């Protein structure tokens, strides 16, 4: 089931906003669920979380670096730092900020990265309607392509991909603004080069053994 993620370092704020979002989504008859998390220590953990939890939208607090939680120390970044990183991979995923300081200059400078900036003081059903609509649109537009990307990636990675599969995957990556983590052609060349190095090493080993035996 698709989920909206609430990222906030303050446990009480996070819980109250999660309850609130759930209540309003229910009132709007939406089936989207809500997941809430304390910010991850590393940015890279968000990609795995978004993929594995089927996150289709994020509601991020701006001042993420204040609070700690049990064994988790405060993080080093704020919401507007995080949004840029998520956008590198998920160009069109709806991202909202929920903050006590919507007029904050830093936040305003990153306004283009967000879909909407919400004030925590005005987090009502109206705001949740906006979130819900954005989620529905994103789901409709991207779900199909994302699924295709997933299938094609698995096929090519297992070595069964054909030339047109690779071209199709490339086209989808461009459309979804997914950065190329690798180039398949380069990968093949790299493997050939790697095998060459292994052969050279084996030859060297052989020469050394020969010399020692003498």
């Amino acid at each position: 089931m698709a989920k909206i993620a609430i990222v906030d370092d303050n446990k009480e704020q996070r819980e109250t906003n999660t309850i609130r979002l759930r209540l309003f989504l229910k009132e709007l008859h939406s089936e989207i669920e809500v997941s809430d998390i304390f910010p991850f220590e590393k940015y890279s953990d968000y990609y795995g979380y978004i993929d594995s939890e089927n996150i289709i939208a994020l509601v991020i607090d701006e001042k993420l670096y204040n609070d700690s939680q049990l064994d988790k120390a405060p993080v080093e970044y704020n919401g507007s730092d995080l949004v840029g990183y998520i956008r590198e991979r998920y160009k069109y995923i709806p991202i909202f900020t929920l903050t006590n300081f919507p007029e904050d200059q830093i936040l305003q400078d990153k306004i283009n990265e967000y879909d909407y900036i919400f004030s925590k003081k005005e987090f009502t059903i109206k705001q949740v309607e906006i979130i819900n609509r954005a989620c529905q649109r994103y789901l409709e537009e991207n779900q199909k392509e994302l699924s295709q990307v997933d299938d094609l990636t698995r096929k090519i990675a297992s070595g069964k991909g054909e030339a047109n599969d690779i071209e199709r995957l490339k086209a989808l990556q461009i459309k979804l603004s997914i950065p190329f983590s690798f180039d398949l052609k380069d990968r093949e060349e790299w493997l050939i080069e790697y095998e060459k190095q292994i052969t050279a090493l084996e030859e060297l080993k052989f020469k050394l053994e020969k010399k020692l035996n003498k």
Partner: protein
Amino acid sequence: MVHTENDLKEKLQVLLKESNPDYRAIFKLTRDLSKLDKKYQHFFVDAKTLIHLGRDSIKDHTTALIELVKNSYDADSKNVDVDVYCRKGGNFIRVADNGFGMTKDDLINGWLHIGFSSKRTSKHSKTGRRKTGEKGIGRISADRLGGSLELITKTEQDTLIGLIVNWDAFDVEGKDISDIDVELFYPTSINVPNKDGKPSETGTEIKITNLRQKWSVSNIENLYYELSALTPPFNDVKDFQIELRNDIAPSFSKRVNSEFFKAAEIELDALYGGKGSDILYTIKDKYTNKVEIQEIKWQQLLSKINKTEDQEVSEDLKCGPISLKLLFFLREAASVQGTTFKLSELREFLDNNAGIKIYRDNIAVKPYGFPNSQFGYDWLELAERKAKDPAGIGRGAESYSVTPNQLIGAIFISRDNNIDLSDSAAREGLVESESFYDLRNFVLGSINMLETHRANIYPLIEKSRESKKTSSSKEAEQIQMQLFSVKEDLESIKSEIESTNTKSTTSDVTRPIEISIEKVDVITKKVDKTISELLNWNRVLSGLATIGISSAVFGHETEGSISLFTNATDNARLLIRSDPPDLELAISEIDKALKHSRKVAAWGAYALTRVQREKRSKKNINIKKTIDAVVKELKPAFEASSIKIETEGEFLVSRTYQMDIESILINLLTNAYTACNLKPGVRRVVITINREDTRLAQGYFFSVSDTGPGIAKEFQKRIFEPLFSTKTVSTGTSKSVGTGLGLTIVKSIVDDLSGNIKVDQDPELKGARFKIWLPKEK
């Protein structure tokens, strides 16, 4: 009645033939006879001239008394008693010394000879003291002190002799100075201070009665400080001690101790135990307030002064155990800032005491360090060394050297422990043996240590000169002092007029002065009120600015609580209305809302209590308790950012303004909070409170340390500048969000309280550490 020449001659002959001639009558007759001389005549001096001369040459009664003590100093006394009693029935001033005293001849041909001063023919006393007065009229200024003077004196050769001067007898119209009798008498006892623990055989005792004016507390205070310029700065030295006793300011009834060492830039103590090659150094300076302890090998010390090149160096110093104390002074206005004395007084003290003296069993060994001896005063040839390389301190430790008149030093040795340092048979001083050269090199090496230290702290000296601006409260104090001094001067003029004029003219002359005194009184009160109002305003404004700065920083916490309160309450409402209602979750949301409503209320109280009126007055406050209370108020904000805040240290009470302490602390905590948030991981703020006395004053400090990124060296000089801020939104960004006022406020308050502020890296938390030192007032 006009006498003929013959009449006079006859009378004179009759008088001369008497078995017990009347010398007073003979003197007058011969004087009258001399007026009949047709070729040579003389000036005659009106008796009143003496009074005018004495009064005109002396600034005030304190100076008049100092003149008498200076005479005791010049008479080589070791001890002087100075008594001033003008309350509780007492009405006398007494100065008694155990100097060499005066013979009858000295008294008649010297003391009674106006304008005569032995100091003019010899600049130094018998024991080598630099004589302190030269005009020869100091004694007649005693008239300023009281109407009658009784003097008793005794030398080794002569018997006791005394004289009585009734100054008021000179204050008559038309009499010749020689018409006024000064009565001699022959007392049987004299009361002078003991000498070296035994009754003194010689000395002079002067008692002045019918005092001209009442002495005030500030007069006695001035007297004490002026007297201290005459005494050496080392407690153990028994060269010249003054015991002041009075019934006006009992706290100044004590042995006069030189306070001038407080003006020393650097104080060095060196100790050699007598065996081995280790020499222990303790160096203090007034810039760092730290005591530096170093152990140096004798060989190292010699190499510092280039004495190892052409000779073998022995393990021990041949001279035996020595302790040395060196005080380094500058003769500039900055040296007396923060002390109670004037630059002129410091200079006088240095003129009297400069030089490095050797004390054997606490008695000075001549000629070392004595200004009268050509080779004795600068026996270490420091002036020659400076002349060869006159480089200033800016050139660094290698070439910088001090001059002899900047140093006061004492080398302590004893007959029993320093046997090799024996007296020279041929002339004064010690035998110039290997032991003596070791002693000399020890002192030269120690001077080099002092020079190196001064060169090392030179950047701090420069910095302190740059930042020596008078704080507003000190400026206010100076204005008040000046007004007070004008009032005192006017009162002194008035009392002088009253004592010199007849009753009929006095009121005409003194009335305008009385009006002026009243005006000065009114102005002083007005100025005092205006200044304290302005300072109070300044205090409130600093407090308000502090609330503003801290609210901007901690405001996030309040905003968060407000939104949480609103949303949790609304959630509870929705949860109760939902179908089915989730009451458990609703209650939990209501609890959360209540908790945050209390937080918001606490923040309101925080702002209101900051500028409470009672915090603006100076009173005894418990510093630790005040700090704990502020920490308690700010703790929720710190905890919301995972910052553990703790205070450690002792309870201590000081008389100060609570609002000032709070403003300093809140600004520092605001900075620490922001700094901690810039780094992930463990976040801590530690406040330490403790006593810390400096050389100049008792005091205490509180420091605020954090786990933030610290302050880059290049910013450390600038952080106190107004509008300069290093506060950024988060790590890696350069956008400044600070107002740049917090530390400026801190600095200004600390300056006003005569304290200081230092910043460095906390050795444990690794972030910034701000240390505030303040004087402890009772």
